[in-house]
């Protein structure tokens, strides 16, 4: 029997995820001892945990660590995306309480579930070991299924949860099968080995076929999570049915996590470009077209944003297909911006839903009169989603577009530009209706709760700040991508 190797662990690389898990457990226990419906302490502990995790994560900037028997790592990409995840989670945590209270959904489970989901998403990004990625994905997904069905008294919410659950499990099975085949091909499930095994695999041999099949299957699973067409069909139903705070969370976080993994996986599988490039090309094209065109005919703002999120996934996929420094920079930039925009937009919609108004585009008419600040925030968020300067959304698209041109993906670049115009149409329609007069007598004015004001201000300042000075983030993203491309890892392991 071989000696058991005790992995040497560089704890700092794991600290952010562990902090979030710890906070989640703490919140879980704390909830038991609080009086019913008293959730402010849960929120505060959660925020504290996220803040601490963010601090630990920031401290890891510049490191390229692989540790815990090469199952966990920390690099600049992980730092950037994890921070985006932490910020989105924090924002949702901040404004969720008010919504849950108003909708009579005072379930304390919300907080630990949200934190567990956050930990899962961070885990996905902080590893190249696909089994760990899978576990992270499951932790994220399982928490999200429950969050989706949180409104226990509402059929729509439960229906969305069921759909999400069944389809999500279905997609997970594909992803897992892909991992199994990869394991068969190379005896390891580490992404970083893929390129070597592909190069070493004999043409026409089984290993070769296994690698091909495995990559395709893994793309199915990740495509589902990232809401890429044709695996997007759950998106509108789930986004619409879920409680809006859960939608805000899942729209931002699961997209960041899924694209983080896709980014790592596809760049690790660079030698297999011939294989995945046409697949991702078609997926990108389809996602942009389907997402934006269908969003155009939606009446419900949540559904519209859901379809548009498919479109955004398509833009991001363009960045992955182009696979060059500029486009990958664009992907990272876009993800950070997208997380902010989505959380903010669904946040405003949660305000609407909270006040008992419907979330149809018609119901948003004349919001400016009832609630000028919310309307203003929504307008800026929509402009950013539409990619109109000077907002962060513009620069995201700009880098993706340039990246696509540089990468020779002219058709995708053109489709990106054209579908952005289509996108601008429905975003602006919504923006304008905010400032138009309401069709019916306006409902009573309502006030924006203070946490929401803080959250929206953070989103707006972030988006406009990035719109005016995109360079710091763009440079950081670029560095992160460059470092990953160089593949310099400091392996801390006992072996």
């Amino acid at each position: 029997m071989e000696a058991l190797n005790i992995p040497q662990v560089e704890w700092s690389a794991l600290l952010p995820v562990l902090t979030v898990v710890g906070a989640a457990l703490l919140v879980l226990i704390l909830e038991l001892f609080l009086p019913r419906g008293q959730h402010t302490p849960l929120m505060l502990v959660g925020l504290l945990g996220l803040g601490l995790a963010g601090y630990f994560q920031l401290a890891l900037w510049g490191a390229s660590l692989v540790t815990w028997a090469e199952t966990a790592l920390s690099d600049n990409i992980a730092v950037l995306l994890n921070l985006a995840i932490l910020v989105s989670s924090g924002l949702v945590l901040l404004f969720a309480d008010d919504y849950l209270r108003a909708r009579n959904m005072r379930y304390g489970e919300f907080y630990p579930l949200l934190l567990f989901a956050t930990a899962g998403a961070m885990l996905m990004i902080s590893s190249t070991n696909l089994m760990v990625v899978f576990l992270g994905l499951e932790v994220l997904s399982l928490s999200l299924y429950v969050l989706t069905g949180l409104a226990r008294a509402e059929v729509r919410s439960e229906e969305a949860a069921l759909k999400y659950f069944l389809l999500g499990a279905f997609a997970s099975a594909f992803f897992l099968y892909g991992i199994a085949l990869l394991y068969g091909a190379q005896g390891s499930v580490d992404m970083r080995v893929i390129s070597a095994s592909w190069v070493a695999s004999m043409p026409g041999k089984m290993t070769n076929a296994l690698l091909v099949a495995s990559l395709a299957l893994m793309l199915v699973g990740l495509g589902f999570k990232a809401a890429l067409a044709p695996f997007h069909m759950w998106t509108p139903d789930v986004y619409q049915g879920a409680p809006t705070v859960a939608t805000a969370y899942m729209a931002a976080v699961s997209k960041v996590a899924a694209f983080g993994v896709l980014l790592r996986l596809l760049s690790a599988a660079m030698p297999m470009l011939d294989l995945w490039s046409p697949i991702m090309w078609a997926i990108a094209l389809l996602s942009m077209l389907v997402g934006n065109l269908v969003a155009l005919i939606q009446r419900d703002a949540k559904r519209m944003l859901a379809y548009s999120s498919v479109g955004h996934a398509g833009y991001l996929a363009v960045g992955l297909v182009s696979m060059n420094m500029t486009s990958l920079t664009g992907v990272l930039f876009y993800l950070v911006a997208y997380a902010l925009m989505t959380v903010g937009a669904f946040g405003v919609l949660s305000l609407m839903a909270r006040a008992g108004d419907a979330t149809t585009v018609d119901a948003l008419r004349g919001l400016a009169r009832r609630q000028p600040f919310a309307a203003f925030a929504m307008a800026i968020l929509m402009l950013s989603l539409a990619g109109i300067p000077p907002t962060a959304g513009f620069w995201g698209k700009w880098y993706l577009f340039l990246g696509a041109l540089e990468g020779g993906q002219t058709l995708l670049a053109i489709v990106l530009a054209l579908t952005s115009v289509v996108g601008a149409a429905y975003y602006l329609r919504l923006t304008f209706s905010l400032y138009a007069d309401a069709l019916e007598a306006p409902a009573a004015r309502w006030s924006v709760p203070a946490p929401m004001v803080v959250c929206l201000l953070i989103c707006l300042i972030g988006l406009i700040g990035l719109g005016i000075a995109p360079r710091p983030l763009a440079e950081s993203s670029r560095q992160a991508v460059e470092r990953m491309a160089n593949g310099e890892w400091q392996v801390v392991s006992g072996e």
Partner: protein
Amino acid sequence: MTAVPASAYLTLAAFLFAIGAAGVLIKRNPIVIFMCIELMLNAVNLTFLTFALHQPNLQAQVAGHVFVLFVIGVAAAEVAVGLGIIVVIFRLRETIDVDSVSLLRE
């Protein structure tokens, strides 16, 4: 080496996976659909184990076995969540036919 070649196991696993997937597509009771998904996961487990048998070193072999444990754990967690959702739906609707669950569409 066993008498049964690896390809046989793999083919069996592939069949199981395909049957599971087909079941997801044609069944309408979510519990049955979910069972089909479990079937797919177990097909994956079989694949893992088959490959684990053929790994050159112990490290890689054990890895395969551990993965199976992980998958079982994940599957159990999925069952818990899935059943929970189904129970709530039943309480609300008093039916769990997936086809009647289609309020959300446009």
